[in-house]
């Protein structure tokens, strides 16, 4: 299972990297979203999957699944959501004031 998951994550990261390297603003933002999905899965997978029960003390018996990566991911999900929202608005403002969403066209006056 872990092997398969890691291969999936590898593909997702490659996709995300390709999107980030493109010059369209929306593609780049989508790339970061995919990247955070891949990373969340990676953290959980590396801790080992299906090694125990749900980490709820009153609901299940020991052994429990490792709860630490879950806590980490919960934080990461919220942060990546905040960043995505912020970057989306930034893209909106950038387009409003510069009239382009092409990153090569946003290089600053001396480089154009």
């Amino acid at each position, binding site marked *: *299972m*872990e*092997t*398969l998951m*890691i*291969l999936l*994550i*590898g*593909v*997702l*990261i490659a*996709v995300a990297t*390709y999107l*980030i*390297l*493109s010059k*369209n*603003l*929306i593609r780049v933002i*989508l790339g970061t979203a*995919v990247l955070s*999905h891949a990373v*969340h899965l990676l953290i*959980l997978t*590396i801790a*080992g*999957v299906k*090694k125990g*029960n*749900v*980490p*709820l*003390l*009153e609901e299940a018996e*020991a052994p429990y699944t*490792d*709860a*630490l990566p*879950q806590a980490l991911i*919960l934080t990461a*999900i*919220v942060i990546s*959501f905040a960043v*995505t*929202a*912020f970057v989306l*608005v*930034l*893209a*909106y*403002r950038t*387009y409003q004031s510069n009239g382009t*969403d092409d*990153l*090569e066209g946003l*290089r*600053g*006056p*001396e*480089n154009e």
Partner: protein
Amino acid sequence: MTINLAIVIPFLMAILIPILYRRFTKLHIGWLVLAVPVIIFIMLVRLVPFVAEGHTYSHTYNWIPSLDINFTTYLDGLSMIFGLLITGVGSLVILYSIFYLSAKESLQHFYCYLLLFMGAMLGVVFSDNLMVLYAFWELTSVSSFLLIAFWHHRKASRAGAQKAMLITVTGGVSMLVGFIMLHMMTGSYSVHEIIRNVSEFTDHQLFIPAMILILFGAFTKSAQFPFHIWLPDAMEAPTPVSAYLHSATMVKAGIYLVARLTPIFGGDAIWFWLVTVAGLVTLFWGSFNAVKQTDLKALLAFSTVSQLGLIMSLFGMGSVAFRLGYSDSTIIYTQATFAALFHLVNHSTFKGALFMMVGIVDHELGTRDVRRLGGLMSLMPLTFTVAVIGSLSMAGMPPFNGFLSKEMFFAAAIHMRELDIFSISSIGILFPVVAWIASIFTFVYCMIIIFKTFFGKPYENNEGKPIHEAPIGMLVSPIILCVLVVGIFVFPNVLGQYILKPAMASIYPGFAPADVLTPEIHAWHGINTELLMTIGVVIVGVMLYRKLKTWKPVYRIFPYRFSFNELFRHLLEVLESGSNKVTTSYMTGSLRKYVLYIYLFFILAVGGYFLFSGGFAYSSANDAPVEIYELMLIIVMLLAGISMLFVKSRLTATLLNGVIGFGVSIFFVIFRAPDLALTQLIVESVTTVLFLLCFSFLPEWKREDSPKSVKISNAVVAGAVGALVVVMSFAVMYYDEFDSISSYFENAYELAGGANIVNTILGDFRGFDTMLEVVVLFIAGLGVYTLIKLKARKEDTDNEN
């Protein structure tokens, strides 16, 4: 304790000055500052008998013991001389500056920098730990920079400050490398510990490189040829600064370092040649160039360069004694070092007086140009007296202290001729010859100072103001120095016994009893070679001065474009344009390029490590079994991911991203993480909505019209990154050297009173992290809000960059 206080007080006062400056608006702030060096000077003078008896004093305060860096203060004869010079000349200079600088200048800055310098300089001479010494050393460079650029509205001041900074700091960094090498050899940063064990590592392969690097630092600081070019430019500083930093103290830091490290490196031939030859060349070049200067201060700058060379060469000659070992016949060579220390003190007295004299002339007349000056003798009699005493002492004339040390210098140079190690015998005659020629030029520029300024055609000033003597406050300091100049001539052995003797003991530890190393200084030795050389200097010097006009064209032989100044300027230009080219070549403003650099570094560094370390490992033994529905989900996500690259519409791409996101949340369910699954579901829904919302304001995306090569290179990088992550993850999965720390959290009920372990981690065990996470969320929210509300600024502010 006293010594620690001596270092700390100037720094404390430097902090207080800006505050006090506002409080005491009526009083010239200099009077408060004056108390600092005076107090430290008195503190040190009280210790003089203690040190003169051969005692030393050391105190260690552990700072970073794990790196062997401790704040160790050490007081011995050598640091005592410098401590007295720093505080003694410092007191006089501050007294002088009170009358020199008007209250309109930004005095709080001036005195703040000056105190900073004083503290740093005391730190340099009292530190035993090389790392601490280095820190203070650089601090003197920084404060010197600030003081040279004190009148920063003048272009020349800024240029001079930059030049001084660049040259001295370059030397400082190389010195640091040398110190680290010393540590690698000896395992210690303590100078005295290194000196104790010196015999064990003189054959070490780092010994010579360390020596050369440290000497480079000392030479740049002490303005030795060819690094002397910064000192004349540094004369843009206010005159009190020139008198203090650039003649009496800071430029002697390099000399201090050479003296301090002589017991370590002194026995080596390379040390002897480098120090002696650099010193002699500097001595000659400085005095030769001083003659052609028309600005009195530039003249003094070159004369300082030359005198520093003299002292440096004497330390070089004195190091021979280490090579020969101690015997009755080698004592004679230690006398060069004695002369160096003696001249060090003498130079500070007469050069300080001369700088102050020039400052007075400049202050009263508004010019320092010898071509315009003249006839001031009757108008400024006291200033004239100071000039005569200072100049004649510098020229080595009796009855002034310069005469004594100059004679000893000649004697040392003559003794070099008799030496038959280091293959000197063939060229030994050059030592006294160079010394003699340089002394002639010294005599000539001393004559220029006296005669061109104070005799001849009277100065005509444009405003028609009457010229009068300087206020008494400005004259006090130079007159005190002149009294010292004469006083040392009359009672040289007081200085010799109390100040110079312990310093000799610290330069030649365990060599011979200090009494043996300290000669009786006599003004009259009978008719001997040294005296004849001095008489020769006077005769030839007077002739050269009278015929100045006829041989001055000599200076035009070397065109300016071959000078070291020009070389330095050219080097700086090449460096600036070169680094500009390098920076613009990769800082292109293209986001893709920047991200690419990061990815490439990641691939090369991490991938390269995997390739060469054999860190890769893989085992599927611990894998959980795969169910058929999981496989289906994996395939769905794979397809969604890959097709994102090819879809034509942004809407489809966003929905595919949603598919991946929901797939992730289903995996969370499968992997026993219900909280994550819930959160992911909500967040994914909101994110998708946000994307869709944003699309109504953004244009439909066009097909990527990048060239094929760009696309292919992107794909290669993306593939490599993905593969690398896979490889890394396998290796991490396989690694099981550490036990999991998670079992600790399974006591959540007892420790935190919650049954949901994930919740207790977030809300209790790592509650502070969660709070900061909320702060991040809040900041992002603020950012979103302001970006939306923000009205587009006016065009001109937008195009500011």
